[in-house]
């Protein structure tokens, strides 16, 4: 966002200055010409800086994709900690010229110059309690990359068991048990296998690259399960126990609002978000958690608990 604001400012200056400089060419004093020339030179320099910045961003992103592809071609073996983190605009942004409003948008902030409003609504769950449920906006991308979320293994359970993370978040799995665990997921686009990890140790982080639900298990203990929802942007919120929710900072327009919970069937609705906001009511059915297969696609067997 910082990049865009600087560009917008530079463009506005250019539009304002260009006619002035053309008109002033015939009448201006040498001092005016020199001042305007200096201004133009400064703008040219700024433009060059911004171009350089964009190139750096693109190169960093490309490098990261190359490494990820190389890693996958190698069969997923090796040290995933060697993967570079996703580029962050702030990481490559030159200090000079940066503005205070250049930080990434916080949760529910909307964060852009778009007109934003609040979506409110209610969830009705038939055949069960709402439990831990979340609502998010699909179809918008605004990553909050570089965050790290911890999912512990304790008493042969994951803690927390339900997590919502923005796209690009790093997950780490410290084993705080005294037994060995093997954390894995077969979720398409987000599959991983951390292998055997001793108690007291933490495996290399996992980066989730695709939005959607990710079920995480242990290949040794079949009753261990964590549900992670990877959201494509920062427009998400937890549904209250009474079924109500309020999601602020949603850009105005036709938006796809999605309800997700590990214990409810996922439902979505297209909602017209006007400057005054939008409302939505979800009806969902309780969903029983079915047994899962191990990382090889086989049943665990009745004694693997």
């Amino acid at each position, binding site marked *: 966002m910082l990049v865009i604001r600087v560009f*917008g400012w530079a463009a506005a200056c250019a539009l304002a200055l260009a006619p002035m400089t053309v008109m002033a060419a015939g009448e201006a004093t040498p001092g005016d010409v020199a001042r305007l020339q200096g201004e133009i030179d400064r703008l040219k320099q700024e433009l060059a800086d911004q171009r350089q910045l964009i190139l750096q961003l693109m190169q960093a992103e490309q490098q990261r994709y190359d490494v990820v592809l190389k890693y996958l071609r190698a069969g997923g073996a090796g040290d995933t900690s060697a993967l570079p983190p996703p580029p962050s*605009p702030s990481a490559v942004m030159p200090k000079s010229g940066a503005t205070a409003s250049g930080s990434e948008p916080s949760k529910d902030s909307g964060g*852009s110059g778009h007109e934003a409003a609040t979506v409110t609504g209610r969830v009705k769950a038939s055949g069960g309690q709402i439990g831990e449920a979340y609502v998010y906006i699909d179809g*918008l*991308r605004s990553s909050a990359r570089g965050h790290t979320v911890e999912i512990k293994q304790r008493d042969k359970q994951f803690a927390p068991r339900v997590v919502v993370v923005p796209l690009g978040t790093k997950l780490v799995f410290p084993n705080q048990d*005294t037994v060995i665990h093997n954390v894995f997921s077969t979720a398409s686009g987000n599959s991983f296998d951390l292998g055997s990890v001793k108690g007291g140790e933490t495996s290399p982080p996992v980066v989730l*690259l695709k939005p959607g639900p990710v079920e995480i298990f242990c290949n040794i203990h079949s009753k261990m399960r964590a549900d992670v929802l990877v959201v494509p942007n920062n427009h998400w919120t937890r549904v209250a126990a009474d079924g109500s929710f309020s999601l602020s900072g949603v850009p105005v327009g036709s938006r796809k609002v999605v309800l997700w919970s590990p214990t409810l069937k996922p439902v979505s609705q297209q909602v017209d978000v006007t400057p005054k906001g939008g409302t939505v009511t979800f009806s969902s059915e309780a969903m029983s958690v079915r047994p899962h297969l191990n990382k090889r696609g086989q*049943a665990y067997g009745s004694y693997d608990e």
Partner: protein
Amino acid sequence: MKPEASRRFVLATVLLAAATGIPARVRAQGAAEDSEENDDSSAGVVLDNAAFEQRLAQSEALIRNNQPTVQVGGYVDFGYFVPQGNGSGYVEDFGHAFFPQYAGQFGWVFLGDILAPAVNSRGEVADLGPAPGVTRFDSINSRGAPGFIANEVNVTLRSALTPTALVSASINFTPRTGNDFALGDSFDVDIAQVEWLPTDSQRTSIFAGKMEPVFGIEYRDRKADKRFGITPSLMSRYTMGTALGLKLRTKFGTNDWLVIAIALTNGSNTTEQFHFYDEIDSNRGKTGSARLAIRLPLSLEIGASGSAGPQDRSTDTAHWMWFYGFDLLGHWGPVDLKGQWMTGHADGEPSQGVYGLDLNQGGYLELDAMLTSSFGMLGRGEYRDAFVWLGDQRAYITKSWRATVGLRWVVTTRAVLKAEYLKNGEYDGIPKIANDIFTSSLVMSF
């Protein structure tokens, strides 16, 4: 247009382009600004992402489809043990000095527990002793000397017939001393089964083949790579053997609070080396066994088990062998508590060389605790009160207790080093026997 004015116009155009075009690309890079996913201005980048996701899906499918159909596992169990005395767990009651009431009743009377000085998870003892009137395969035969031993090389094969039907086999190789130019090495198959989970809930399993028993809880830890310590309990000889037949195990209720397992097998769940085991049945009758367990709050499980059937190795069905007992299992973070009490009886059939048994009672209580993520220790107390006889030929009187302390060091995820000291004691008229033992084990899994 003058050159200078032309230059200014070009500059203004460039800046205008910068203000309109380039930021769209920046947004498409996901630089924290909301963007519509179907925005045409980011089509190039979207194409890259789509290609990347396609490649990712291909890589995942490649990995999935190239997984081997048979999963091979197992371990090498290598140890060092130091026995006391001659390494055996019993002495002969010469001249019926200790139990004169058996004079004239049995030719030989032995005191102690033949399986007390165990050196490994198989339950093999340091020495079977100089038993008269019988030829036994003394697998370790240390004669009281300390020594290294390759306790077991285990190979486990596992494959899925379908996603809910698993075939598994466990083969143990035991390198031992040869005799008269013959190798002493042997192997045994302790698991050869299919497990089918027929329901969607996967809470019911049906087994067929040579499989683990349903009696008690110790069978779950019977293999060296699963056991917290090294040696099995004094009760394990009745509960840890694998038998041929059919088994059903199912769970009910919230958090599987009720577990029921029943089995119909050729013989009992005594261990294969023990003289009550019969893998291929010698009679028409079959042994039925069952366990009912309740999972209580506070991670506590209590169970009741029983088994009954015509006695193994007897060719008729007139002589029965039965056991029943209760067990306890608790799990609190790094601490596990395990306990078992049981009793049993076998009629015996001396004309066919079949032993009789009065297991008056016996049991153990074991506490396993991981003090850190790598170091743990165990303590176990147990006793066994039994009378075993073969016609009027021989009798074994056992009134033994045992205290075991052990250490466990998880060296890596695939290597565990363990050490135990077994203090064997006798009571109620049985003389003190030098049958304590120190043993250690390095279990390396693959």
